[in-house]
């Protein structure tokens, strides 16, 4: 770049013009221009269906209706569409879908974007391909059976004539849309994009610093808000003195946001918003607020005490959640082993904290948000503003990580409420402290596992209990037991072939907003069962994989019939996504074989193992650690095998699995949110640390080749990591860590 040194005076307006025009920043007019900077379908496009438009310039505009947060979905969904469409990837332009009910659910969570949409996306691609073929056949006046679409052209086989998709676009868009059942899907051997590791479509923008996240939205006339929210759930503003805040340069207003009563759900938390002409002034103004808070029933919440309470409760009978075989009431001391495991509250900590910009006018509201759930954003914003859902338009930006936090639209509601009051666009940017202290936390938990052993030290009866405040408590007051849906996540759905196997849920009241975080209750449940199986293995003198193989029994599909519960199976039919012991055994075998090839461990080192099924995928993980004489822990290596059924983009499955191992290590090694006097004690990365590059192990991922229906990818890698780590520490040191995080016991 040239050394241009002339001093220029820029007003904010000039700057927006300049960078809006050159792409250095994105200036959005308040006129309702859509958020799709690099991918607005052109005027000359012809729309073939909800997901596919084709331009006369030969470009195909493929809509991704799911949120991109690092999983690669803005590449994966278009890969499926493009494959059936026979589109040339070089001519694909990805358009981000707005919130729109016609897409069906857009909730980008539960590891289901590919799992739930694979078939529909293929049909959409095939329908559009069929319309292109029909249009060409009509132009050539030949039977449609004589033409075929291939590589972005339709060919007439006998005459050798061909027309490009661009040439056919307008004519194709007027063709009758075929029924989805009437179109022919490609044979998987003919796939050109499905199964390929296409580079993510946002790569260039990301490495050039041009990718636009929620935090990067800028609009003319936009104001910046920083909000102090109640530090304890249930407390309200008692007194407010904002006189000093209003004197801070750049501050334009201070606005009280009503603290809602009852279950928090997706509502804005309320509090005091400082509004300014830039982020920093808003933050400075906020520091000058003098607020006192009313008392709350949650003021006494203290995690040390609470965990003691849960730990006592899980030693006593709870509510029956599953009974396989007959209940065992006799637990002789000499042949019974048991263990109690705890996991603390956890915060999501996406690198980009929650953020939303809203522009409310007399006629409606437009939102630009880093959201995993644009439709619930529409609903909640409309309800909060007293508008109809049709009046609310929600644009989805790129997400700087989500992990479940951005499934909750509370931050968009805040922006909308403030914009409504100010009649100007407002951006609400959460700080890291806000994100850590006012989140929807992963639940604190205690689990009790018990086994009665036969003469071969193999379990003939097992009992397990789980206690944690339920996500349902966020949506309804008074919920104080884990819900059935949460127990389905790695607790009642472990298909062990133990004759008598009982699972119970135990009471746990909520004292803060509980939410879902990457892999949700599988985190604590995989830690529980994954640790306990290792304890059983060590007690029996066999390897952990061998104990899993023995407990799982022979290859079979398990339906949990007549066991006292209806298994939710992540919203899937068991016929399509069975609980398949054979697939467990396969990933165990892959990792076991990889382990057999590893060099012998040195003193102070040890391998740990765990396996888990979640989101209908199967993941086995082995971890090698070293603990030195000063109790310093180093994680040296990780081996993972994932069976997620058919794979659309192998590189993104690999990267998600790598990332899941890192996510699992972060939470297991150092993840802990604690409460004293009702308040979160942590505030930023110094006291809520995340794994750093210097702590990151070498990692090896094997993806099982499979034709089974696509299963989940984003989350299933997380659950087995924590137990594999603590099992490795046991192997290295003989020290059994049953209470996470590990940094309570070892130096990391």
């Amino acid at each position, binding site marked *: 770049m040239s050394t241009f040194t002339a001093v220029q*005076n820029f007003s904010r307006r000039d700057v927006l013009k300049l*960078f809006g025009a050159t792409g250095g920043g994105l200036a959005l007019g308040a006129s309702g221009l859509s958020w799709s900077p690099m991918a607005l379908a052109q005027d000359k496009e012809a729309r073939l269906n909800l997901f596919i438009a084709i331009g006369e310039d030969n470009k195909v505009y493929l809509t991704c209706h799911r949120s991109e947060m690092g999983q690669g979905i803005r590449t994966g969904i278009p890969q499926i569409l493009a494959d059936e469409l026979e589109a040339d990837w070089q001519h694909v332009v990805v358009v981000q879908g707005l919130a729109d009910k016609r897409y069906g659910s857009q909730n980008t969570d539960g590891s289901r974007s590919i799992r739930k949409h694979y078939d529909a996306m293929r049909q959409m691609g095939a329908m559009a391909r069929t319309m292109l073929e029909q249009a060409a056949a009509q132009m050539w006046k030949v039977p449609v059976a004589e033409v075929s679409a291939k590589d972005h052209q339709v060919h007439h086989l006998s005459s050798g004539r061909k027309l490009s998709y661009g040439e056919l676009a307008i004519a194709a868009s007027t063709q009758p849309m075929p029924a989805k059942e009437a179109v022919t899907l490609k044979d998987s051997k003919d796939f050109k994009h499905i199964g390929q590791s296409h580079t993510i479509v946002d790569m260039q923008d990301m490495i050039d*610093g*041009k990718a636009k*996240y929620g935090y990067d939205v800028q609009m003319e006339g936009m104001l910046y808000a920083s909000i102090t929210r109640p530090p304890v759930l249930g407390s309200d503003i008692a007194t407010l003195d904002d006189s000093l805040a209003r004197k801070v340069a750049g501050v334009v207003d201070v606005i009280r946001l009503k603290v809602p009563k009852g279950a928090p759900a997706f509502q804005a938390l309320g509090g005091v918003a400082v509004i300014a002409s830039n982020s920093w002034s808003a933050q400075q103004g906020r520091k000058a607020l003098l607020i006192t808070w009313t008392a709350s029933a949650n003021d006494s919440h203290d995690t040390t005490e609470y965990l003691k309470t849960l730990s006592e409760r899980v030693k006593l009978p709870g509510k029956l959640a599953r009974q396989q075989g007959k209940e065992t009431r006799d637990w002789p001391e000499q042949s019974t082993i048991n263990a109690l495991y705890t996991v603390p509250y956890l915060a999501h900590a996406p690198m980009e904290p929650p953020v939303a910009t809203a522009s409310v006018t007399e006629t409606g509201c437009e939102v630009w948000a880093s959201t995993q759930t644009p439709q619930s954003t529409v609903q909640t914003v409309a309800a909060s503003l007293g508008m109809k859902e049709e009046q609310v338009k929600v644009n989805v930006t790129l997400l700087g990580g989500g992990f479940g936090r951005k499934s909750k639209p509370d931050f968009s509601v805040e922006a909308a409420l403030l914009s409504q009051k100010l009649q100007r666009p407002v951006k609400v940017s959460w700080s890291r402290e806000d994100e850590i202290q006012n989140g929807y936390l992963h639940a604190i938990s205690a689990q009790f596992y018990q086994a009665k052993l036969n003469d071969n030290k193999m379990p003939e009866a097992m009992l397990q209990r789980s206690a944690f405040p339920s996500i349902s408590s966020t949506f309804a007051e008074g919920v104080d037991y884990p819900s059935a849906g949460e127990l389905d996540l790695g607790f009642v759905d472990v298909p062990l072939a133990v004759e008598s196997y009982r699972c119970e849920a135990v009471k746990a009241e909520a004292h803060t907003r509980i939410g879902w975080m990457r892999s949700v209750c599988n985190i604590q449940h995989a830690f529980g069962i994954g640790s306990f199986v290792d304890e059983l293995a060590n007690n029996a003198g066999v390897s952990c994989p061998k104990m899993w193989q023995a407990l799982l029994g022979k290859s079979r599909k398990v339906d949990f019939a007549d066991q006292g519960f209806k298994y939710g199976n992540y919203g899937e039919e068991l016929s399509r996504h069975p609980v398949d012991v054979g697939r467990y055994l396969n990933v165990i075998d892959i990792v076991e074989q990889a382990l057999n090839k590893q060099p012998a461990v040195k003193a102070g080192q040890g391998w740990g193992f765990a396996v888990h099924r979640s989101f209908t995928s199967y993941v086995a993980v082995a971890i090698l650690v070293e603990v030195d004489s000063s109790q310093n822990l180093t994680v040296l290596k990780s081996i993972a095998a994932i069976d997620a059924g058919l794979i659309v983009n192998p590189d993104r499955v690999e990267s998600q699995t790598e990332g899941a191992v890192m996510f699992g290590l972060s939470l297991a090694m150092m993840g802990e949110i604690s409460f004293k006097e009702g308040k979160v004690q942590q505030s930023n990365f110094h006291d809520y640390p995340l794994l750093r590059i210097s702590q990151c192990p070498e990692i090896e991922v094997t993806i099982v080749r499979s034709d089974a229906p696509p299963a989940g990818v984003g989350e299933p890698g997380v659950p087995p990591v924590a137990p594999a780590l603590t099992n490795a520490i046991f192997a290295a040191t003989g020290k059994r860590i049953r209470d996470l995080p590990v940094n309570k016991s070892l130096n990391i």
Partner: protein
Amino acid sequence: MNDEKLTLSINGKSFALDTDPKMPILWAIRDMLGMTGTKYGCGAGLCGACTVHIDGKPARACLTSVAQAQGKQVTTIEGLAAEELKQAWSDHNVPQCGYCQSGQLMSAAALLAENAAPTDAEIESAMSGNICRCGTYTRIKSAIHSVSKKGVSNKGASS
């Protein structure tokens, strides 16, 4: 507020700003100058998402005030001339969500400018201030090695 005009030199261009000199350049660059490639992650120098170069050295924009940046050359991701390094990032499919990657690239470019062939330990040391919640660390390491093997020194400064 202040009579003397403040000037920020960013990617070789000078910008006059009428602002509190204590404002961190992160917010001046993003909110006032509209360059959003430099990211907020923690506001406390703990995560590296806002890493820029000041006179060629990596610095945290969230901890550097406009006053401290007077007379200094600031380079942001938008001005980073490190095509080979960026290509390595693409070749190794490093980013997941991508949000921290501006800061990762700025730190990596500064490392390579100082040390054309860093060891694993040197990479870990230079990059340990940059958090990636998605967990792209092993690929970051590979991407840096792939460039360093060629013995290329990527000059981070753009001017």
